[in-house]
């Protein structure tokens, strides 16, 4: 029984993993000789074998939810293309598309004569694509030997395997220091020497103030005003600035999650600014980082709701239309073509084409630490066709080099932050809902997503215990969740897991006024106690 080596596709840590097949089932193997992860894998990495032969894998094209042949599917796409103008066509790429495939999709858009090429990966972590001029990437050795570390957001949940070297560095010497800035007191915060809890979505202002404290010459930042907006004390940031002083070797890491960050682009740049001012390298932790395309997602939404888009290719990842609940305007698109690994749960209008998973194809990608090659560990799932095969049947296209980074200067960042701060303190509704993202596998683990975290003060205010359920109503959805009382969240703040689609649907997609970017910020909600109990009442002699 041979072990096939590959690189885990679920985040950008570049963990090496092995998959073996004994003729009956695929199994994960832990490669102790791997340089990056020493054989360690997170829950997502452990579920890679489940993706290969998952019972929900899609093995044939679907037209309006019904099975069709590949010939008919390709024929239909060609006839639909003949019926629309190039300007009425939009091409969206999302998670799961490798660098080579994105280059091909860019060429495909050019061949079809459309400028509507959009990055559909709208998670805030994609904003690490924006880079400060002086930002330097950290190496794994720099993380392992760090003495002063700053983590912004929940890095441990984004890349649990990357937490290994960070914790080892934290314990290596009594004088080593770890600072965490986050709006939720996560488990990661428990490891911190200094934990600074900001108001949800206002981490950027704490970061800008910290940058100004690290470099007194940084003009245009009113430290006290920014501390006020973020809800942190100046002396906390001064202590952090002391720990992170340029003399101490270390790094700055940042992670962003959906429903947690209000200004993704500024968040990315402010984290980098702190790294630059502290004289430290930077790591942007996230699951994927993709080129921005020729049109922004916000512009695409506008074009779709105006009825200017008649046909759409959605070349996405695990499921077609990664954010279906967040995209109600889609009904206005007449012809829809989506790629998918799994069978959609509801019959979707248009075509859904089955594609191989990332573990079944050769690709090259960038991890946090280096460029890595991913090798196939299994043959493509029966009936699937690769994205290059599909695009090749429709039009002849050449690969076009992607943009590697979008550079931004320090002055622009300070100006951007000033503009955001001018709007005054971020509005504080009575209840603010924030998103938490955990690294959970495909084979279950959704229990934690069924509950909503609430502070003990609020639990008393609403007169609820963990036996109760809460009805949460946001501007775009409603959900009923079990109560989980924890002091990890501030009073007035509720948090839910955002891996589950139904939870994500509570967060509306917004367009930032300052930058025009797409963001999924924390949202004000209405909350009330449900009549339903969280668990069934204990059995008694009467009810049996």
């Amino acid at each position, binding site marked *: 029984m041979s072990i096939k080596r590959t690189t885990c596709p679920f985040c950008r840590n570049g963990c090496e993993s092995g998959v073996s097949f004994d003729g009956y*089932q695929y*199994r*994960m193997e*832990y490669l*102790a000789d791997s340089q990056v*992860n020493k*054989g*360690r*894998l*997170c*829950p*997502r*990495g*452990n*579920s890679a*074998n*489940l993706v290969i032969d998952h019972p929900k894998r899609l093995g044939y094209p679907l037209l309006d939810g019904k099975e069709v042949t590949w010939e008919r599917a390709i024929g239909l796409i060609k006839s639909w293309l003949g019926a629309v103008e190039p300007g009425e066509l939009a091409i969206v790429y999302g998670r799961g598309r490798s660098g080579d495939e994105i280059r091909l999709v860019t060429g495909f858009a050019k061949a079809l004569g459309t400028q509507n090429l959009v990055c559909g990966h709208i998670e805030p972590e994609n904003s690490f694509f924006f880079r400060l001029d002086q930002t330097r990437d950290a190496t794994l050795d720099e993380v392992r030997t760090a003495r002063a570390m700053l983590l912004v957001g929940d890095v*441990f*949940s984004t890349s*649990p*395997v990357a*937490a*290994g070297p960070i*914790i*080892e560095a934290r*314990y290596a010497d009594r004088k080593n220091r770890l600072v965490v800035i986050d709006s939720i*007191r*996560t*488990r*990661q*915060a*428990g*490891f911190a020497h200094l934990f600074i809890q900001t108001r949800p979505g206002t981490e950027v202002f704490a970061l800008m103030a910290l940058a100004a404290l690290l470099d007194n010459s940084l003009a245009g930042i009113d430290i006290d005003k920014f501390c006020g907006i973020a809800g942190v004390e100046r002396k906390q940031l001064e202590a952090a600035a002391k720990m992170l002083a340029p003399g101490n070797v270390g790094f700055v890491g940042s992670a962003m999650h959906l429903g947690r960050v209000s200004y993704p682009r500024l968040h990315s740049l402010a984290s980098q600014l702190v790294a630059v001012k502290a004289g430290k390298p930077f790591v942007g932790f996230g699951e994927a980082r993709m080129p921005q395309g020729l049109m922004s997602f916000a512009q695409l939404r506008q074009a779709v709701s105006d009825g200017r888009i008649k046909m759409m290719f959605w070349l996405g990842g695990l499921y077609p239309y990664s954010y279906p609940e967040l995209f109600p305007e889609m009904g206005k698109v007449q012809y829809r073509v989506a790629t998918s690994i799994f069978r959609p749960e509801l019959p979707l209008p248009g075509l859904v084409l089955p594609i191989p998973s990332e573990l079944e194809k050769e690709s090259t990608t960038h991890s946090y630490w280096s460029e890595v090659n991913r090798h196939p560990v299994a043959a493509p799932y029966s009936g699937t066709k690769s994205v290059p095969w599909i695009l090749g049947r429709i039009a002849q296209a050449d690969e076009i080099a992607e943009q590697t980074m979008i550079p931004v200067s320090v002055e622009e960042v300070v100006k951007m932050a000033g503009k955001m701060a001018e709007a005054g303190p971020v509005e504080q509704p009575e209840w603010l809902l924030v998103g938490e993202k*955990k*690294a*959970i*596998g495909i*084979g*279950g*683990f959704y229990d934690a997503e069924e509950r909503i975290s609430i502070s003990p003060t609020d639990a008393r205010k609403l007169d609820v215990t963990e036996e109760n359920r809460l009805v949460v109503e946001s501007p775009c959805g409603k959900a009923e969740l079990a109560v989980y009382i*924890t002091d*990890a969240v501030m009073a007035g703040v509720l948090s839910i897991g955002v891996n589950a689609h139904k939870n994500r649907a509570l967060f509306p997609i917004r367009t930032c006024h300052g930058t025009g970017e797409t963001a999924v910020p924390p949202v004000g909600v209405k909350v009330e106690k449900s009549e339903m109990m969280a668990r069934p009442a204990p059995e008694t002699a009467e009810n049996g």
Partner: protein
Amino acid sequence: MAKRIVLRLDYCIGCQACEAACRSRFKGEARIRYGRVTETVFVPLACRHCEEPLCVAACPFDVIRRDEKTGFVYQSNFHCVGCRSCVLACPFGVLDTDLLRSISQKCSLCNDRAEGPRCVATCPTGALQFVEEEEVVEKKVGVGFAARLPHRRRP
């Protein structure tokens, strides 16, 4: 030499990778669980392979046995009838029955894998260790920051 799974609580980030690795191998049935002990302490719970295992004593069909040489408590799923006696007997609550197959799930220390248990191999931070009993005492494995300053640990 008897080897045991030991948890260094200082290093545990609560990611549940151990449980995922176990599920991934045993068709969705986890034999290591992730328990909420108190409001602020979450720990992976694995079989202790006790010196005097109550599950062995409770099993009416001698399906669970203890290897006196290695101290390894093992079970044959094939002969298990799912009576739940071992589940009720276990003082640590780490045994449970699977709902589908109705047989008890007992940690086998991954005896089909030469390198040791999968949960230990996968642990992203090295919180789970597979070490000999003597080493645990000598090197004080698991006695560290969390033991000294429990109030500093948060969920």
